[in-house]
């Protein structure tokens, strides 16, 4: 949006000039136009025509995101805002297709040995990084080794013993166990991005993003914006835009207003209470897609009395997740006592709790717990957790449990979570695809995201076995058993699967909201 106002001003100046100089407008404003708009508008000599010209040739998409990317290193960030940007800068070996099953991306094809322990990927020809260097198998190997060493996503490569690059277009992975979900893991999202080996060596992955995606990185001003420009050598379809400017707009209502007034073209979320209003607005395309995200409450198993499964179950019985869902999301979410949404193949129809305060009271009495006060940690960066917390407080109040709500900013929140400094917290996990994403890191006793300290041998065995099971139905049966036990033991108390809500101006063509929240603008155009 930055450049449109000066442009309008220029048009106005041109008009005034025209009035003064009696028809000499073009001569007068031409040089000015060059000077002022050079950086942002193509080489078009006549600024007066730019608005129409841009619509035809591509233009810059102004996208609003709700927060600052904490960093632009795909392997170390966990911020959803970073991935909204990086989705368009980087590629993975394979990527989730429209039905979320893996489809070729940087790898054109792949083969598996009979014992399922050797995977051979063949890379696409002629792919180059934004700096012009060619993508080789060495870059892929270096990327995976970096992820396995220091990334947030090392667990996704647990099954892989070694990566090798026998030639420039072949990558071989040796596994220590069969991993039927390997494709889902190596291509789950841009956290598994392929970066250049040179950037890893120079230590510039985070500072100078150099990917193979449809857009290349131009600049990042924290708190303000991230600017990308089209990569003319992109291997896939597109890009049709000249560039994308991601503007950081933390306030949801400001974001919506900016879309309504045309200040931005696309927004990354919509407050659920405004769905009806935006759907009725002919100048806004509102998109609502059932997603794979889930929101939950987690109790600190390392602290008394939450180490007692009866206390955790009592809390599950005392909560009314229909009300929590309704309060936090209006109609834009589906209550679910398990993690995986019903739209998924891996959905388990299991809801043992319902809303039963009497049962909750009985369990609490049996456990000998009274006068319980819970320190519940939530964050304003995800306002649904603050709303949910107030409903939780009131519902638990009915069984005599007092809830102290503690709002922290998200970075403090994450630190407190890591330190185990909480009785309970409410949050969500976004963009999961494979059932292993939903359960392993969160509920395996050695899972990296098992902040609640849940440990159950049977769940561990089931999750370990399910990872290696190659038969899909047998695998689902294992995950169903694991999920049942996780729900029964209330490792997480699940609330709902929210719809993914995005909105854009009708000018934006060729963009689809995806259930895995991947924001792909490769084939988007402004028309």
């Amino acid at each position: 949006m930055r450049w449109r106002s000066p442009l309008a001003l220029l048009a106005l100046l041109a008009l005034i000039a025209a009035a003064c100089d009696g028809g000499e407008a073009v001569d007068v404003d031409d040089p000015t136009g060059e000077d002022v708009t050079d950086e942002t508008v193509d080489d078009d000599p006549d600024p007066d025509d730019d608005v129409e010209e841009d619509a035809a040739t591509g233009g810059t998409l102004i996208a609003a995101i709700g927060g600052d990317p904490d960093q632009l290193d795909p392997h170390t960030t966990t911020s959803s805002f970073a991935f909204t940007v990086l989705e368009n800068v980087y590629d993975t070996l394979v990527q989730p297709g429209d039905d979320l099953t893996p489809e070729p991306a940087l790898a054109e094809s792949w083969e598996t040995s009979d014992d399922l322990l050797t995977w051979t990927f063949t890379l696409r020809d002629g792919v180059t990084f934004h700096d012009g260097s060619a993508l080789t198998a060495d870059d892929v190997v270096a990327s995976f080794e970096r992820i396995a060493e220091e990334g947030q996503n090392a667990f996704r490569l647990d099954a892989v013993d070694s990566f090798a690059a026998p030639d420039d277009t072949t990558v071989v992975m040796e596994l220590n166990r069969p991993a039927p979900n390997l494709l889902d893991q190596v291509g789950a999202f841009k956290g598994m991005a392929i970066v250049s080996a040179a950037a890893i060596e120079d230590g510039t992955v985070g500072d100078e993003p150099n990917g193979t995606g449809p857009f290349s990185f131009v600049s990042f001003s924290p708190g303000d914006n991230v600017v990308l420009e089209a990569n003319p050598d992109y291997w896939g379809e597109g890009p049709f835009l000249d560039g994308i400017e991601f503007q950081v707009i933390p306030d949801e209502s400001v974001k919506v207003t900016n879309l309504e007034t045309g200040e931005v073209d696309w927004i990354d979320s919509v407050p659920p209470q405004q769905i009806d209003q935006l759907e009725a607005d002919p100048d806004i395309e509102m998109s609502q897609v059932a997603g794979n995200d889930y929101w939950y409450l987690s109790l600190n198993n390392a602290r008394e009395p939450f180490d007692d499964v009866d206390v955790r179950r009592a809390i599950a019985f005392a909560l009314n997740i229909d009300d929590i869902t309704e309060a936090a999301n209006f109609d834009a979410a589906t209550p679910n006592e398990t993690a995986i949404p019903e739209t998924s193949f891996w959905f388990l129809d299991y809801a043992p709790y319902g809303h039963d305060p009497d049962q909750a009271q009985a369990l609490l009495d049996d456990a000998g717990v009274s006068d319980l006060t819970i320190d519940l940690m939530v964050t304003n960066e995800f306002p649904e957790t603050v709303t949910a917390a107030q409903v939780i407080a009131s519902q638990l109040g009915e069984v005599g449990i007092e809830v102290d709500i503690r709002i922290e900013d998200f970075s403090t929140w994450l630190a407190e979570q890591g330190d185990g400094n909480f009785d309970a917290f409410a949050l969500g996990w976004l963009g999961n695809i494979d059932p292993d994403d939903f359960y392993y890191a969160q509920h395996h006793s050695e899972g990296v995201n098992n902040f609640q300290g849940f440990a159950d041998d049977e769940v561990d065995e089931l999750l370990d076995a399910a990872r290696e099971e190659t038969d899909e139905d047998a695998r689902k049966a294992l995950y169903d058993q694991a999920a049942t036990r996780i729900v029964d033991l209330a490792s997480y108390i699940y609330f709902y699967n929210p719809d993914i809500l995005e909105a854009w101006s009708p000018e934006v063509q060729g963009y689809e909201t995806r259930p895995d929240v991947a924001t792909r603008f490769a084939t988007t155009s402004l028309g």
Partner: protein
Amino acid sequence: MSEHDDAEQLQAPDEPAEARWKETLSALFANRLAAAGVVVLALLILSALLADVVAPYAFTDDDLTRRLEPPSAAHWFGTDELGRDVFSRVLFGARVSLQVGAVAVGISLVLGTLIGLISGYRGGWTDIVLMRAMDVLFSFPVVLLAIAIVAVLSPSLTNTMIAIGVVFTPIFARVVRGSVLSVREEVFVRASRSLGASDWRIISRHVLPNVAAPVIVQTSLSLAFAILTEAALSYLGIGVQPPRPAWGLMLLDAQGFIATGEWWMSIFPGLAIFITVASLNLVGDGLRDALDPKQRSIIQSRGVT
């Protein structure tokens, strides 16, 4: 013994305390705006104290079937996004705001007066060290410093009060020190010192009463700013924690519902803040005029005519 009598004599020109108070009050009430402020404040304090009795609902009383209802006979100020009664929450919010205001300003009043007294009365190095420390505190923007303090202490009602109290301390310290500096050199103070009166006696009998007027004015003005600061902190989510209602917090909640037309969620807490702060300012202005000898004689002469 004789020492005592001399001191009494020196103070004699002052009017009896009771009469002075009456005069101040009548001067205050002669100012119609200030009088209105006093009345509104009295009502606010009353409703805050009696919120349990007056409020038709508990502030946590949620009912999702009645969410976002406009003002009606059942819910005078409408209901919020969880179906809670906005009127009741505004009443209970008054309790939070006034409590934070009173305690925070209490903290800064005591601390600031103490520091100002010591600093002004002792002078020298004590004065330099204390006042430079106050200058450092004072150089931070008020809200920013309060945010920093709350961030360190973790957000809660108590810590909000402490943070605001600390932030406002330098203002009182400066006001008190300034007055002490001038009073210290007055003839009657020097006289009682020459007669051998102890520091404590001089401070309590002569200095304190003479710095009271500016401190009282500053207190009522600081109350207004303290309440505003609390609202700001709560609005930023680092003040009072939900579900306890605070006006700033209610504004934060309401923000997401402005575009969809639920105006009552933001208007009423906003009005509450406006009215409280405005009346505190009016009272503060009135007090300043009433306690200023020059202004007072003008008011009195006006009253006579």
